[in-house]
Structure formats: structure tokens, C-alpha cells
């Protein structure tokens, strides 16, 4: 169980998150919806330890607090992040990026299996093992980023707009792949603009606005919620 | 508009005062002013190009030395103003060649390239003197006093700051900033990167050459080891960075205190100069993270915001 409570975050004087409370059970998939600048990425970064929240904020994993844990110790706890803008190691090869993904100790045992899984999910990566990631197309780099996160054998995988810049067919495949990831028991925390497809694989969803959670419901309910329709689905299930 | 006029008026007054200063000071004071003004011009001229583009050039001493050597070679054959002109022209030509060569380089590659270039020029001058003219050291017996050198440097400083002021307000200044931020964007919005970089580099290098030429008569004896001393390049960079290289007054605010610090330390702690200087330097880096000018601005800003609140 990953529990976030009373999470607040300041960038200088700008309040990016205010009293956020979100919970994800093991194996569950949760999507966070919200306009640009609502604070979705900030929330994921705070969980990953990349930004330091205000005092009084709580991030608990299976009852243990993650607050104060340095960012580089987070992957070891089983939380992985595919960040906005990918954050791949541009001057290293695909293979090296994946190898680094398995850097946390918890990932070592399953490394070989994971490699196979990832090359199965993204055959393009298997073809380009030795290519410098910097020289790959935007979508290819996104695959590397997701692959790298999966390498760490996460229990909770956070994805920040994974479909960004991917061809439709790849988006379909990616979400199919994410479904398979779900089946391996990994919980997903998803931030997406592609609302319909993300709701389709989610159990629950949260709505964010200006740094606050303004709504939460099951995915089923959100799909038909008129407010959500208005704000995020453009009135129709396009 | 009026504020600019007042600003110019004040600056003219300050210049007049500075020009008048030598009459109030002894030889040592004049020497101090002279050295300080020399570095003010060097740092300001350096920052003309390197500030906005963030290309850290260590070729300063190459141009400085070229200027000094030109004077040493020609001082007996040409009238002094002409010598300066020739020195400036040589500096300009070398700068254009160097500028063309370095266009493709970026970051630290540019830094070390310019260092290598300065060393190469020094080696070539040495080799030429040894093998062609057969004398290495040269003598300059020009009847130019320290005051006169100082006045020339002061004028050059005014010109340099004037150019800096003009650039900051002109399209070229904006182009330089854009280049410093992102060259791809720069070229895609229609900036001819090569031309902008080259012309600025040439202007900056010509001024630096003139500093070398103007200061040369002070030494009587010149040899490559003296006028191509890489320390000059390093000090220039350090002063400009310390003051804030992308502001008009930044280099001045770096050069003056640093020069005085050097002077004070060498006058008072000749035996522990290195250690004290080093420690102070480290302290400065930690206390004044974004250059002296920014420090001043921060203080001002805090002051103003407090005023607003009250």
C-alpha cells in the first residue's frame, strides 16, 4: 500500500501541491487526470523523492515513511518513475540504459527475465540494442524510458504521460503492454492526457486542479461523470 | 531618455575625475590605477564576446602579447599613433582568422582550444625571433610616461564600456544572448551565428590587442615569456566571471576589487600571499555565488521589496 497524505509542495513561493491525499493498493492501477500545470508531475516527483515536500507531508509505503529518503534510495523500495521528458541517458546505448535500470539490488535476480520481457514489449529496442539513445526518435526514447523503469522490478510503477509522442499503434501496444505489466502484480500510477485509454486500464482515478485533488472515483464512474466529460473528454468519448 | 542623459553626464563627470586623478597621486598610485584600468579594459573587452555567448576564451594573452610585440618591433620605425593602429589591425586580422577557426567549437573545447592557440602563437613568435631575427628580447625606449599610458587606457575603457552599452541595446546584443542560450534556435530565427560571433570576437580581440600595445612601453624589456604569460588570460576570465560577465558593469566590478585585493595581499602578506588569496577566493565563491553585481542587485531587490511592504 502506497499512501500519500497531506502532501504539500512549494517551488519558491509558488504552491504546486496542497494537501494531497492519494492511496494505491498493491496491484492496483490509478490514473491522475488534470490540466496542464495542475501539479500531476510534481506529485510523482515528490513520491520519487526528487523534490522535497513541506513538513507534515506523509508518503508511506507499507507503513514505512519515505519522506526524507534520498531519491536514489527510492527505486530500492520498489517504486519506479518514468519521468516527464523521459530522462534517458542519451550518451549511453539502449542496452546500457536497460542495464542501469536493473541497478537497484532488488532487480538483480530477475534481470534476464526482464530483459526478455522488455524486448518482447518493444521489439524496436531489441533491434537497436547498441544505438546511442540520444540519436533515437522521440517515441523510441520513450520506450527506453519505460523499459528502464520496468527493469528495476518495481512494485509501483509511476508513468508521467507515457503516451506522449507515441504513434497510435504504439500507444495501443503500450497500453496492452501495461496491462501485461498489471498482470505481473505491479501497481501503476498513471498520469495521462489520453483520458479514455488510460481510464480503460485503470481501477480508479483522481482529478487534480491547481495543486489540489478535486475529485476521486472509480474509473467506470469517471468515464460517465459529466464533470469529467466537460473538463477532460471534450464532451464526447472521442 | 532624460535618465540616459543624466547617466551619460554622470559618467562623463566620473571620467573627467578619473583622468584628473594622477595629478593627485604619486607614481605608485598612478601605477596602481594603470594596472587596474588595464584589467578593467581586458575584462570588459573579454566580456563583450564571452559574457553573452558563454564562450570562455583563454586567448586573451595571445592578443595582448601581439599588441605588446608589435610595439616592440615597430616603436623605432613608426610614429606611436601609427604603431597603435598597426597593432590594432594585426589583432583584428588574427582575431578574424582565429574566429573563423573556432566557429565549430563549443564549451570546454573552445576554452582549451583558445588556450592552445595562445600558446601556439607564443611558440611561433619565439621560434621566429630565434631563427629569423636572432634576438629574443626586445627593448622599448619610448618616452611615454605612466600617466600617459593610464590616460590611453582610461579612454579605451570608456570606449569599451560604450561599445558594451551600445551592444546591450542593439540587435546584436540580443543575438548574442540567443546564441548563448541555444544556437539551434538562434539560427532558426534567422540569426547568422557565424557573422555575429565573428564580429564580436574581432571587436573584443582588437581592444585586447590595444591594451597590450598601450601597456608595453611600461616594461622597457619584452620577451615572449613576459608578454604571453597565460596568467593574464586567467585573471581576465576570473575577474569578469567574478563580477558577472553578462552585465555591462560586471567585469569592472570584478576587476577593481580583485585587483586591489591582489595588491593589498602582495603589499601586506608577501609570504603568505598564495594561501590567503586562495582562501579568500574560495570564500568569495561561496559567499557571492552569482557575481558581485548580482549580489548588489539582490540586496537592492530585497531593500525595495521591504520598502514596498512597509
Amino acid at each position, binding site marked *: 500500500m502506497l499512501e500519500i497524505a497531506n502532501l504539500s509542495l512549494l517551488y519558491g513561493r509558488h504552491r504546486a501541491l496542497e494537501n494531497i491525499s492519494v492511496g494505491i493498493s498493491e496491484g492496483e492501477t490509478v490514473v491522475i487526470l488534470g490540466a496542464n500545470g495542475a501539479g500531476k508531475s510534481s506529485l510523482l516527483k515528490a513520491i520519487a523523492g526528487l523534490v522535497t515536500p513541506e513538513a507534515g507531508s506523509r508518503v508511506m509505503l507499507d507503513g514505512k515513511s519515505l519522506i526524507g529518503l534520498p531519491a536514489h534510495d527510492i527505486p530500492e523500495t520498489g517504486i519506479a518513475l518514468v519521468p516527464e521528458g523521459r530522462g534517458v541517458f542519451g550518451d549511453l546505448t539502449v542496452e546500457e540504459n536497460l542495464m542501469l535500470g536493473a541497478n537497484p539490488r532488488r532487480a538483480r535476480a530477475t534481470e534476464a527475465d526482464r530483459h526478455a520481457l522488455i524486448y518482447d514489449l518493444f521489439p524496436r529496442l531489441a533491434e537497436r540494442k547498441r544505438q546511442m539513445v540520444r540519436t533515437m526518435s522521440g517515441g523510441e526514447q520513450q520506450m527506453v524510458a519505460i523499459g528502464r523503469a520496468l527493469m528495476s522490478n518495481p512494485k509501483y510503477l509511476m508513468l508521467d504521460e507515457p503516451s506522449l509522442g507515441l504513434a497510435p499503434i504504439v500507444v495501443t501496444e503500450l497500453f496492452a503492454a501495461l496491462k501485461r505489466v498489471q498482470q505481473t502484480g505491479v501497481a501503476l500510477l498513471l498520469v495521462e492526457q489520453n483520458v479514455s485509454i488510460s481510464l480503460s486500464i485503470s481501477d480508479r482515478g483522481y482529478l487534480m486542479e491547481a495543486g489540489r485533488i478535486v475529485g476521486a472515483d472509480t474509473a467506470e464512474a469517471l468515464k460517465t461523470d459529466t464533470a469529467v466529460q466537460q473538463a477532460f473528454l*471534450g464532451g464526447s468519448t472521442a | 531618455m532624460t535618465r540616459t542623459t543624466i547617466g551619460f553626464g554622470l559618467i562623463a563627470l566620473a571620467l573627467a575625475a578619473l583622468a584628473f586623478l594622477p595629478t593627485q597621486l604619486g607614481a605608485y598610485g598612478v601605477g596602481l590605477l594603470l594596472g587596474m584600468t588595464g584589467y578593467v579594459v581586458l575584462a570588459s573587452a573579454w566580456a563583450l564576446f564571452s559574457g553573452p555567448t558563454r564562450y570562455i576564451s583563454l586567448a586573451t594573452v595571445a592578443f595582448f602579447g601581439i599588441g605588446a610585440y608589435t610595439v616592440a618591433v615597430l616603436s623605432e620605425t613608426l610614429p606611436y599613433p601609427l604603431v597603435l593602429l598597426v597593432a590594432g589591425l594585426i589583432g583584428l586580422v588574427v582575431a578574424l582568422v582565429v574566429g573563423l577557426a573556432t566557429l565549430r567549437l563549443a564549451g570546454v573545447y573552445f576554452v582549451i582550444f583558445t588556450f592552445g592557440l595562445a600558446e601556439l602563437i607564443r611558440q611561433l613568435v619565439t621560434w621566429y625571433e630565434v631563427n629569423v631575427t636572432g634576438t629574443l628580447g626586445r627593448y622599448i625606449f619610448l618616452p611615454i610616461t605612466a600617466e600617459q599610458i593610464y590616460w590611453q587606457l582610461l579612454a579605451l575603457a570608456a570606449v569599451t564600456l560604450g561599445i558594451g552599452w551600445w551592444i546591450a541595446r542593439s540587435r546584436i546584443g*540580443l543575438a548574442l544572448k540567443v546564441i548563448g542560450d541555444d544556437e539551434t534556435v538562434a539560427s*532558426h530565427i534567422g540569426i547568422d551565428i557565424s557573422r555575429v560571433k565573428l564580429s564580436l570576437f574581432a571587436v573584443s580581440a582588437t581592444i585586447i590587442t590595444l591594451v597590450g600595445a598601450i601597456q608595453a612601453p611600461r616594461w622597457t624589456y619584452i620577451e615572449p615569456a613576459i608578454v604571453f604569460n597565460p596568467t593574464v588570460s586567467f585573471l581576465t576570465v576570473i575577474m569578469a566571471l567574478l563580477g558577472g560577465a553578462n552585465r555591462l558593469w560586471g567585469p569592472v566590478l570584478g576587476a577593481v576589487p580583485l585587483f586591489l585585493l591582489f595588491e593589498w595581499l602582495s603589499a601586506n602578506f608577501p609570504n603568505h600571499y598564495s594561501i590567503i588569496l586562495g582562501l579568500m577566493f574560495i570564500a568569495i565563491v561561496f559567499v557571492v555565488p552569482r557575481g558581485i553585481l548580482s549580489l548588489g542587485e539582490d540586496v537592492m531587490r530585497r531593500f525595495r521589496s521591504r520598502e514596498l511592504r512597509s
Partner: protein
Amino acid sequence: MTQLLDITALTKQFGGLTAVNKVSFSVNAGEIVALLGPNGSGKTTLLNMISGALQATSGTVALEGDIISGLPPNGIAHKGVSRTFQLVKILPSLSVAENIIAALAFRPQPLWGRGARDQAEVLLDRVGLGGRGDEHADELTYIDQKRMELARALASEPRLLLLDEWLSGLNPTELRVGIDLILSLRQSGMTIVLVEHIMEAVRALCTRSVVMNVGSKIADGPTADVLSDAGVIAAYLGDGNA
């Protein structure tokens, strides 16, 4: 209808990899053409060759009959080509307005001083950033940076505008605003080539689509036809999106 852009047998090789392979197509003035294709099919590379960011290995790009391939990016920009980048490129040390003024100041008929400031405000208004010129460019949100980048591209008054996934990352509401903005550009007579993976936008905006796969052109025609093409569905759209 006059032909504005003409691409002939354009090829780009990176070492052994042929990223763009003898692609030819042309774009009429006033058209909005979508450039589609799977990830890594060479779309960005193609745009890069048009804008001069990359030199073509072979083939030519012509603008109203003028060969522009071989010119440096600034030369091409002065011929009337502007673009945005797949990963936004802002000028982080400048203010939002200065980002635009920079482009105004270096277009063929430069604007400077008062005129530039006013025009920058007009452009910012147009992309929805009115009144925010004094903010620091690097403190804008992603979407606002994209808006600013578009305003910067528009500042050059291009004849041809290249948009590389400019609409990606927008939520559906924002997407609609974005689509309207691009439509308004067409109304003003601009020709646009856009790379996009969001089919909703492509359908709404583009009369014609060109589809690439593994560096080669596999389809070219009216958008509706292209998107129902079996080859395109297999390579790009997938069955679910057909």
C-alpha cells in the same frame, strides 16, 4: 493553387542508417499537410532537412521553385520557413517577450524597439499568453512554453510553418483550443506541415496527409483516404484506431 514546397528524392543517412529514404512530395500554398508515421520513421529528420537543421545526404527542397536545401538555417528562415521543435526549445535566460522579440529582430523585415515590443504582445495574445511577456521563459509550464515557441515561429511571418508534435501533451480541452489556433493560422493564409500523432487533430486540421514508414513514403493523399489505407493501418494506426 500554387505549389509552395517541393521535396524531391530527399535522403538522410546517419552512418549506416537511412533515416529518410528518397522521399518526394509537395505542398500547395495555404494547405495544412500532416506528416505521419510510426516513431522513428524519419518525420523529424525530414523537418530538420527542410528547416536546415540537418543537411540532406541527397535530394532537394525547393520553396516556390527556389532550391533552399544547402542553405544554413538562418538563410532558410529568411526565405520564409519557421518551425517549432519536438522537444520545445526555449531561450531560458530571456523573458517571454524577449523570446518573441528575438525572432522579430532577425526576420527579413526586422522590427526593433517599441514596434517589436508591441508586435510581441500581439503575438503572445494570439497564442493565449497575453500580458505575460515579463515572465521568465524557463518558469512557464510546458504547454505555455509550447505556446511561446509557436508565437516565436509566427514572429518571422513565415510562408511555411513546420510544427513538430506541437499539440502533443495537451488535454482534450486544451487540444481544442490548439486546433482552433492552427485553423486561424490557415485562415491568415499560412501553409503548414505538421507532424502529429493525435488523429483527432489530424482529422480536424489536415486536408492531406503524407505517411512515412522506415524512412520511405508509404501514402500520400486526402486525409480520410490515407487513414483508411490498409498499409497505413498496419504500420501506424493499428486496428483499434482505424
